[in-house]
């Protein structure tokens, strides 16, 4: 029994060491995690800024890809038709509010979840009205487009697009963009006014709307 008790003593010691090692590793891991969480939170916020800034320059250059699709009848328009009720993907609406704890998002860039920052954050941008002329290369050549933004508390409160293209096709695409991006101008609700009848575009027949509905369901992901 001496041998077995000796073995048992050895085993006991070995097991203890193993347990101690595991505990140390776990503790160490917890500690490292706690430290890194803080570190990552800061990294993410900085990364968000970078992405937002890129979005601004991208939206101007993204017009390039829109232009080149203007002449062809590309499949890529299949996606665009789904977005008829929203601004198109190139909408330069930037919502950046670091004092908010909810994730900010644009139609193109999904934002990473942001840890709650301290509430005494300073504004990143000045309030006011800012204008710039962006340029891009359309199939017909370099074209300008005027953008005016009104910023208040780091939120874009209005966007106005000025059609400046020289080529008439480019002007047409810029007008299409104007329609999508300019703030919706409200009229008056029909049931709030006294009228005998309404004049507008033709109400489409069942055939056309049915075809549209079929296409929408085909095109859905």
């Amino acid at each position, binding site marked *: 029994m001496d041998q077995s008790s000796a073995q048992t003593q050895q085993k006991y010691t070995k097991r203890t060491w193993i347990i101690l090692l595991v505990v140390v590793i776990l503790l160490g891991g917890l500690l490292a995690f706690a430290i890194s969480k803080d570190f990552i939170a800061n990294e993410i916020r900085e990364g968000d800024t970078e992405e937002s800034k890129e979005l601004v320059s991208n939206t101007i250059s993204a017009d390039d890809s829109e232009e080149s699709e203007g002449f062809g009848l590309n499949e890529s328009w299949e996606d665009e038709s789904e977005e*008829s009720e929203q601004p198109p993907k190139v909408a330069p609406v930037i919502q950046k509010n670091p004092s908010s704890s909810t994730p900010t998002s644009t139609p193109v860039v999904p934002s990473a979840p942001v840890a709650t920052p301290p509430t005494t954050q300073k504004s990143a941008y000045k309030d006011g009205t800012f204008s710039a002329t962006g340029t891009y290369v359309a199939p017909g050549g370099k074209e300008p487009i005027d953008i005016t933004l009104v910023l208040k508390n780091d939120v874009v409160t209005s966007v106005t*697009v000025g059609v400046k293209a020289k080529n008439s096709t480019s002007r047409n695409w810029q007008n299409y963009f104007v329609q999508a991006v300019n703030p919706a101008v409200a009229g008056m609700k029909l049931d709030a*006014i006294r009228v005998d*009848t309404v004049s*507008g575009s033709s*109400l489409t027949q069942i055939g056309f709307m049915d075809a549209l509905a079929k296409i929408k369901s085909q095109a859905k992901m």
Partner: protein
Amino acid sequence: MEFQAIGTHWKIEIHEKISDSLESDILKSIQERIAIYEKTYSRFLPDSLITEMSKRAGEYVLPDDAKLLFDAYEKAYRLTNGFVTPLIGSVLSDAGYDANYSLEPKKLNSPLAWDEAMDYQFPKLMIKRPVLIDLGAAGKGYLVDIVADILRRKEIKSFTINAGGDIVNEGKTIRVALEHPNDATSAIGVVTIGNESICGSAGNRRAWKQFHHIIDPKKLESPRHILAVWVIASSGRIADILTTCLYFVKPEILQKDFVFDYLILFADFTVEKSQGFKSELFI
């Protein structure tokens, strides 16, 4: 009375008391007349005259009612330098707005010039090569005029016909809402009309991919600088064709040959209207 015809919704209001039998007699006459009209002018019916012209060149004899329609197109074609053309049918069809409503764009080609494709000397129409004609720019307005004539022949003195936003009114002044092109439950304004017609055109409803119901035959794209146009004229036919013309040329050019009032709503929501367009705007 309300019904569906030529791809849109019709509402006819008779502002006087009439018997049920007269009303159903009127409705029957109207629907029969519309069927005859479609059999001639619709590119959506497989056995119409227009469909035959798209398959077979040759000399055709047009029915009586074609004169006013083709005369209007001849004038519009000349004044707009070919931007408004009955030969737009092939472009619309290739863009997807075909008889099957496929809404799948194919390669677009500019249509032939008028005299390359046709020779029009009423009642004869020589189709030099098969072409798909589309008469939508004036066809609906003209049909509303024809229906209004049926009512007048039946001694109806006061009525309002509204065929998908194209209106012929007689007997009393009415207030017409100008439908907001981006919100069918709202209006951008209200206009008052008497014994006249008002037609509206906008790119919001018959719209697919990058197109709407008006396509520029030279640039092969749908104009986007205008959101909506309304024209008031003495007939539906003229009011209708002028709304299409205004997408392509300035009002001054059309005022040489036509008497009308108009309101144009541009893409940036600015408005241009004639002095005689009596409206109250909400924008």
